[in-house]
């Protein structure tokens, strides 16, 4: 995070604080109160020491009085600390919550181009980890930094009033402690680097050997794996021992420096008392301060490192929140769709420099079954992205029933499509909830009927809790997941269908079985099918053969074959050879 950016990030954060601004102020106020009181209490204890001088010389009145004051201050400080804790919690958790709530809303509005480009892991870490860092590091860090500075200032003021010379001594000697810890930190950096490198190697080795444990087992590789691990582990042991040891020197060393400062304060203080410039109570206070004086400094230095990290996290969070939304949605509704679809002079590319779809034209009647074929990366899925308006066209128009799809709301457009994709996404919820995803109020009969039609019922009924089995990542096979995705669409049956390699994970025989269901589903509905299996393609009314974003051939299966063009070539390379 460059310095230029950080003020703007803080400004944005302040804007986001909104109603939490008052809380932040309260927190800061409370921290001033607690810091002042907690530092003033030792002053009072110091006075108490001066009230009890020696045998027969005790100022009971002042002593008891001061003790009552101390108790009052302690009580106030205690309550203030607690309230400050509560306020800080409310502040940080509240901010995290509202940032995350805005983030999830933002996700629904962001163009898919952004989401596809950034990837899931990146965005999840912005919403979860970075947000946490932001609240911990930036907000708590800020309050800690603030109270640290207040502590230093108040301590200095009190010490100066008590005795300027001893204060000077402390001020001159404290940097020593910093030098020592800095010196150690620089020395350990290299060792940690080495340790982390070896640990990185070990992690990859573990990932391979444990992740691939089945193959290790199948090849009787266990012994060799153990040897390799042992060798690396030994190197890690040596490097870690050094790193752990040297880094653990910081504490004792700074403590030793502090002890020396402490001794010096004691020596100088004793001489001052002898010269009548200090009381015993004053000395005891100065000693207590000398002991704690380092703490706010170390706190501040660790907070500052954390702040830098938190600022860059905040930057990432705000980048997400401020990313441009997808184009504004129309309020017009797309109604009574028949399925007539046209594309007129459509241009589209994911990256400006690499044009993908150029001057794409298409006109199909309602109820037509369109198969899209072509080699990988030819733009098949892109076409679907455009039809569903996951992406907007760069130029030209796509029309449904003569209505440009840009002129109606995305919602009303998508409601008219049933979509089954190659990647089978299911919610971490029950089978029932997943099937009824598009129609939450569907009856049990309707769900079962859809499941039977999609041939998913036979495995659903065998699941431990039938329809109420909760699906997680590993409980179903890829093929079963795909069947559920088909069932999900089977239940709602919208006027148009998009099937993107919808049966790629289903074996040919089951596919053949659900073919009837598919045909029923597709009957009278405009359907776009991206498929790799010939049987699916061959039954289509029109085949669009795509290559490099262009439709290079168009026609029925037999027409295209007899034409002897790219399609027949493709067909030969993919499906021929059975009888070689």
């Amino acid at each position, binding site marked *: 995070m460059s310095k230029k950016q950080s003020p703007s990030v803080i400004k944005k954060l302040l804007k986001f604080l909104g109603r939490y601004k008052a809380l932040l102020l309260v927190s800061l106020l409370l921290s001033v109160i607690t810091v002042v009181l907690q530092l003033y209490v030792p002053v009072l204890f110091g006075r108490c020491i001066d009230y009890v001088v020696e045998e027969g010389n005790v100022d009971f009145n002042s002593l008891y009085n001061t003790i009552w004051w101390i108790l009052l201050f302690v009580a106030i400080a205690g309550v203030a600390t607690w309230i400050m804790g509560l306020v800080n919690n409310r502040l940080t*958790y509240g901010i995290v919550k509202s940032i995350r709530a805005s983030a999830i809303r933002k996700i629904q509005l962001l163009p898919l181009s952004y989401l596809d480009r950034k990837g899931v892991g990146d965005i999840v870490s912005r919403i979860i980890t970075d947000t946490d860092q932001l609240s911990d590091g930036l907000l708590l860090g800020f309050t800690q930094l603030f109270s640290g500075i207040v502590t230093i200032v108040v301590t200095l003021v009190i010490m100066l009033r008590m005795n300027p010379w001893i204060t000077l001594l402390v001020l001159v000697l404290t940097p020593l402690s910093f030098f020592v810890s800095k010196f150690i930190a620089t020395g350990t950096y290299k060792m940690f680097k080495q340790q982390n490198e070896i640990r990185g190697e070990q992690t990859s080795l573990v*990932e391979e050997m444990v992740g691939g444990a089945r193959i290790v087992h199948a090849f009787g590789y266990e012994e060799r794996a153990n040897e390799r691990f042992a060798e690396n582990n030994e190197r890690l042991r040596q490097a870690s021992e050094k790193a752990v040891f040297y880094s653990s020197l910081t504490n004792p060393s700074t403590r030793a420096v502090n*002890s020396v400062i402490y001794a010096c304060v004691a020596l100088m203080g004793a001489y001052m008392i002898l010269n009548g410039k200090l009381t*015993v109570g004053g000395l005891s206070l100065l000693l207590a301060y000398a002991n704690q004086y380092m703490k706010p400094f170390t706190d501040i230095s660790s907070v500052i490192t954390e702040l830098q990290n938190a600022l860059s996290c905040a930057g990432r969070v705000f980048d997400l929140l401020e990313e441009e939304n997808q184009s504004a949605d129309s309020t017009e509704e797309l109604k009574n769709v028949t399925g007539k679809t046209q594309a007129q002079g459509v241009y589209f590319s994911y990256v400006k420099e690499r044009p993908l779809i150029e001057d794409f034209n298409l006109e199909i009647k309602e109820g037509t079954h369109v198969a899209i074929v072509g080699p990988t990366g030819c733009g098949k899925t892109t076409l679907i992205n455009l039809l569903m308006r996951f992406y907007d066209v760069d130029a030209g128009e796509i029309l449904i029933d003569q209505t440009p799809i840009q002129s109606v709301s995305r919602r009303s457009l998508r409601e008219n499509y049933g979509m089954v994709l190659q990647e089978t996404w299911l919610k971490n919820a029950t089978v029932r909830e997943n099937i009824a995803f598009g129609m939450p109020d569907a009856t049990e009969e309707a769900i079962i009927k859809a499941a039977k039609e999609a041939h998913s019922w036979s495995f659903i009924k065998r699941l431990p809790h039938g329809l109420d089995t909760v699906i997680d990542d590993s409980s179903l096979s890829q093929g079963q997941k795909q069947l559920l995705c088909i069932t999900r669409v089977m239940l709602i049956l919208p006027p148009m269908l998009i099937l993107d390699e919808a049966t790629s994970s289903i*074996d040919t025989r089951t596919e053949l079985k659900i073919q009837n269901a598919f045909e029923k589903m597709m009957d009278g509905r405009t359907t776009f099918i991206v498929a790799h299996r010939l049987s699916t393609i061959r039954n289509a009314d029109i085949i669009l053969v795509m290559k490099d974003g262009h439709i290079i051939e168009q026609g029925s299966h037999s027409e295209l074959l007899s034409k002897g063009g790219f399609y027949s070539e493709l067909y030969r390379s993919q499906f021929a050879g059975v009888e070689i």
Partner: protein
Amino acid sequence: MKHLLKYLKPYTKESILAPAFKLVEALLDLIVPIVIADIIKNGIKNGDKEYIIARFIFLIVLAVLGLAFSITAQFFAARASVGFAANLRKDLFSHIQKFSYEKLDMIGTETLITRITGDVAQLQNGVNMVLRLLLRSPFIVFGAMIMAFTINVKAALIFVVSIPVLAAVVSAIMWITIPLYKRVQGHLDGVLLTTRENLTGVRVIRAFCKEEEEVKEFDEKNDAYTKMNLFVGRISALLNPATYVLISIATCVLFWQAGDSVYTGSMEQGDLVALYNYMAQMIVELVKLASLIITMNKALACGSRVAAVFAEESGMEYPEAVSAKDVSEESKTETSDSDIAVRFNHVSFSYEGSKEDALSDIDFTVRTGETVGIIGGTGCGKSTLVNLIPRFYDVTGGSIEVFGRDVKDYEKGGLIREIGVVPQKAVLFAGSIRDNLKWGNENAGEEELARALEISQAAEIVEKKEGKLDEIVEQGGKNFSGGQKQRLTIARALVKNPRILILDDSSSALDYATDLKLRRAIQALDGKMTTFIVSQRTSSIQSADLILVLDDGRIVGTGTHDELLKTCDVYREIYDSQMQDGKEESA
């Protein structure tokens, strides 16, 4: 947990010395307030400057000694904790290497990886902190109390009362909050999962217009998480003010009493300063102890997770081998007479925790040198069946014989030596191509490697690479295409020169022509190798000597291609569904 302590054993000396030196250092810390009291009581009172200087030098000596002792302690603690972790990791790794497939399925490899990497690191940190601090903090707390007794018994009683009260408050707060933090983590996982779902399923969510519902669901989880956090926060925010108030009250009582004691002459001003300092030391150590307990708790949780992995048996028993050599030779002589390579006797099998049999009543015999094709729909049990041959899983019913011996009678490693497996998912490992091929046989020579590459149709892949056999394979084989990886994994299995070769749908990424060349090359081998080919394509197994047709875990047809076309409906359906595609073409 006790199980893990044995890894500290080689470091017994260090584990005793580290806390011991820490204790000496703590003792020195405890002397400091006494020295200050002496300065006040003797030096200042009598105006004895020499005495003050002598005490000052003593304080410096204490600081230097403290540094020396504490560095020594850190050294031993570092050595013991790092060594502990290293030994533990090594054993854990080799223990995991022994897990059967079933165990791996059950525990999950991802989990195991975090056990070895993350959890052991946390444990190392925990052990280190315990060695350094666990004894020191209580020692200072109680030491302060004992020192107080040497100064003034009446004042010391205040320590006696306040220590248990403080300890009770601290432990009560932690007792309540630590389990609650686990629940907070659970809620956070919920938020994480929903966020991830929203991103991975963005197309489906938008296609079904479910954006609002998803946001609502997220809000619920987000709310629950925040509420839980606030609730726990309310309690844990008590820790600091509570200890502060308590220790301050104790100090006030101390001063109140000190007024009388000093007045009557049973205590001096300097003593009060010392007692006051002991109170301060105590609170600092109590706070340290609290954070140490949190670290320990984390380490204990990690420790019990690691211990749970150790508690898992390898999941498979092997007969004791009298001597590995004898047995393998014996098995060779014994099996050479046997003409039957693999026999399944009414085998049934179900995965752990599953109600349904994955395979039931599988019964067939394969002669040496035959090629067996296995075909069937998704999830019909094809892979499961071949996984039983090398005993990756144990059958739940019936028995399997390989070369005339029950697979359970082979000693560990004996059976796997005879079998080359090419799994469905082609996995290569970081290293060179040569390293990967040698997985099959460490001592394989150039010729053997070349021959294996030739048969698996992978020679051209190696030829095209700049480094040839020494070309680097990245982790997971990322720098090779799916088809290339498949051919290389086949080569890897062939390097082993196995008597049984299992191809588990391992040519799915190859085009028909390459697939055919591969099968021809395998068939052209000397005829002793028995081959199992699992496939979804009828074309891949058409020429097999025996085809098993599986449906829903049962064999619904056995025979050659031509026989099955006549007798087996399922086979014909599969064939038709695929041949529709090709027939017109060849016609």
